[in-house]
């Protein structure tokens, strides 16, 4: 049995390698490397999701939001400094706003606890809400003029011009902090509720990034994002992308090794136990909510790092460009196809799905052209004019079909989770 599984893993990996090699031949080195680099970044994201979904059973359907916030964090750290902004009076205004939020936030938190000192709960709740609203309005008031000044003079606040690696780290931290807040509120919820809540929160994050022009330039986009390695502009496509790919590869290996160690340890066993049965886990001393929060935060940190790397590779920070299909569903499929609970599976899934995703467009075009010729020659039916356009819709179809086929023929994924057996 064990042997069979391993044989299967090996043959799948070899198969994937062959496919990748074929793409190198078909599409050329530069493009194939780009595909691999992006797939690598997505593999990191998939590993992060696997921590949540595969290990802890937390269904995070808001990957897009975490990628977006991480990309923003990374952009903020690594984008060059905007001197116009720093020389204006806007930083002062922003500082004021930060102070208001800090003080207002502290007051609100304090007020939310006064019931411990004998204040009736109802009054406490009212006071808390009033304080929160007041803080919101005052902060808003401080922000409006600042935002106007910034947008008029300098576009947006710019970045800090620090190293990109630091940016990715901070991106991960941003995603983790957001995850912490969300987790605090929603982890009491059951799995598919969590999915929907995160789905919604991702949209909220996106709406914020899209409309906070002073902070992110909103729909006007920020580019070019600096790279951790020289860009294709400087050293050519192949070398630059190979360098980028090797950085992601190193990250993948590090994350993979650490997660594998965790998985095989009591920690991994505990997480699987929690995933299976929270009630029983709680009764044998596992602090279920805290552990789930831990998983959610760690997972999203990884998602964040991967997301920051992905967006950096693309070179443009465009809040409207975060789309559920590209940044949530695709990753989800990667994990499911690879086999949730199996880290190697997630990496494998990421590569395979991304290959299918990117290659389905040219492949569909070729297929449709053949089909059209065939129609024309055999039946003498003129194909519709916009055939090429329509062929492009096949990409969505293909990815849908992939999901269904996987669930049908390999419901546990191509590389299923291994049951830990002691001899």
């Amino acid at each position, binding site marked *: 049995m064990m042997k069979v599984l391993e044989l299967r893993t090996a043959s799948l990996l070899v198969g994937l390698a062959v496919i990748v090699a074929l793409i190198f031949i078909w599409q050329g080195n530069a493009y194939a490397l780009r595909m691999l680099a992006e797939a690598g970044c997505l593999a990191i994201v998939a590993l992060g999701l696997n921590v949540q979904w595969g290990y802890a059973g937390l269904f995070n359907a808001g990957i897009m939001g975490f990628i977006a916030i991480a990309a923003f964090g990374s952009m903020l750290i690594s984008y060059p400094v905007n001197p116009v902004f720093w020389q204006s009076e806007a930083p002062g205004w922003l500082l004021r706003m930060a102070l208001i939020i800090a003080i207002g936030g502290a007051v609100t938190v304090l007020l939310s606890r006064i019931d411990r000192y004998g204040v009736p709960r109802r009054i406490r709740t009212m006071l808390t809400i009033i304080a929160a609203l007041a803080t919101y309005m005052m902060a808003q008031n401080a922000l409006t003029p600042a935002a106007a000044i910034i947008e008029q003079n300098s576009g947006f606040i710019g970045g800090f011009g620090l190293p990109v690696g630091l940016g990715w780290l901070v991106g991960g931290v941003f995603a983790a902090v957001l995850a912490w807040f969300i987790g605090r509120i*929603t982890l009491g919820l059951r799995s*598919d509720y969590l999915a929907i*809540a995160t789905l919604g929160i991702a949209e909220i994050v996106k709406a914020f990034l899209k*409309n906070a022009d002073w902070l992110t330039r909103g729909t006007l986009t920020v580019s070019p994002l600096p790279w951790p390695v020289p860009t294709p502009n400087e050293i050519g496509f192949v070398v630059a992308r190979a360098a980028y790919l090797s950085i992601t590869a190193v990250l993948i290996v590090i994350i993979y090794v650490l997660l594998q160690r965790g998985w095989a340890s009591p920690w991994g066993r505990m997480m699987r136990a929690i995933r299976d049965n929270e009630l029983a886990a709680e009764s044998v001393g596992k602090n279920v909510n805290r552990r789930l929060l831990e998983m959610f935060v760690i997972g999203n940190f990884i998602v964040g790092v991967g997301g920051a790397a992905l967006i950096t590779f693309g070179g443009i920070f465009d809040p409207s460009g975060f789309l559920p299909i590209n940044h949530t569903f695709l990753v989800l499929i990667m994990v499911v196809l690879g086999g949730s609970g199996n880290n190697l599976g997630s990496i494998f899934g990421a590569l395979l799905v991304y290959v299918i995703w990117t290659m389905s467009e040219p492949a569909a075009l070729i297929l449709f052209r053949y089909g059209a010729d065939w129609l024309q020659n055999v039946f003498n039916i003129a194909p519709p004019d916009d055939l090429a356009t*329509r062929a492009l819709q096949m990409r*969505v179809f*293909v990815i*849908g079909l992939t999901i*269904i086929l996987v*669930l049908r023929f390999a419901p546990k994924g191509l590389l299923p989770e291994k049951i830990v057996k002691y001899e």
Partner: protein
Amino acid sequence: MNELVFFINKVVIAGLIIGSIYALGAVGMTLAWGILRFANFAHGDLMTLGAFIAFMLTMAMPGLGAYVGLPTAFVVLPIAMAVTALVTILIDKTFYVPVRKTNPKPITLVIASFGVMLMLQGLIRLFFGTAPRQMYVGSKDIYRIPFAGRDIVITEPQVLLIVFTVVAIVALHLFLTRSRTGKAMRAMSDNADLARISGIGTAHVVRVTWIIAGSLAAAGGTLLAMDVSLKPDLSFNLLLPIVAAIIVGGIGQPYGAIVGGLIVGFTETVAVFNWAILLRPLKPHMPDWLELPANLTFVPTEYKIVVPFVILVAVLIWRPNGIFKGKVL
């Protein structure tokens, strides 16, 4: 008074209409969710599919409506509903049944439904292209009810929409609580194995569920397309507010879907309503120094799309089972 009518038009009626749209979308989905125990995300695209079928039927026999005195698209609706129901059953047979056989977690089926959703999207675009289309053969009736100096406006498809929603939901409720099959559906959602042991033909129950879900989806999509216009991704864009409505109302609760839909709909309209207009009549009585801002809304319109999610998250935290105590799956 003028302002009051304005308020009625913009908040009461607008909320009612968009709320009904959400509700009608939500009913079918909530039912399938409750009984088959998974959120069928392909529901939005089933709605679109149903609308396209109705559209084709309308184009095939455009004169039909004139006989009956109703819009053609509405007259052909039963056929469209039947066809969509059939398609839904086929989808279940080919895609969901094999997955269900492996005895999966509910979320696995959710993922399967993502797959079906994407496939439907691809196919609809492939066959129908992407341009928007009109469901109306002629022009639609617009009823303007004069009221205190300004008209209250409501259109024919909107009236049809509201009436249809109410009828559908009452009928559905009666079916579920009174009929044998209705009860069998609930039993199956509780414990499919035990339902089989009790002699319930589960395949039959699943089929009935899909018939209801599919035909309601077609109705929702068609009515929506009649009110707005028909586009390939029209209903998909509604999916998240619909899910919000379902959760607000409680999963598996048809009445909850109505309430949830209306709550989400009204909150959206109220959130972006410009309250300044209601204050304007008071302007002469106000002190001079108090300047009335031109724009007084809770939420800037560009943030309108987050409103359903905020409601959703709030409800999830405050009352995770929804207002109507839905299923805890």
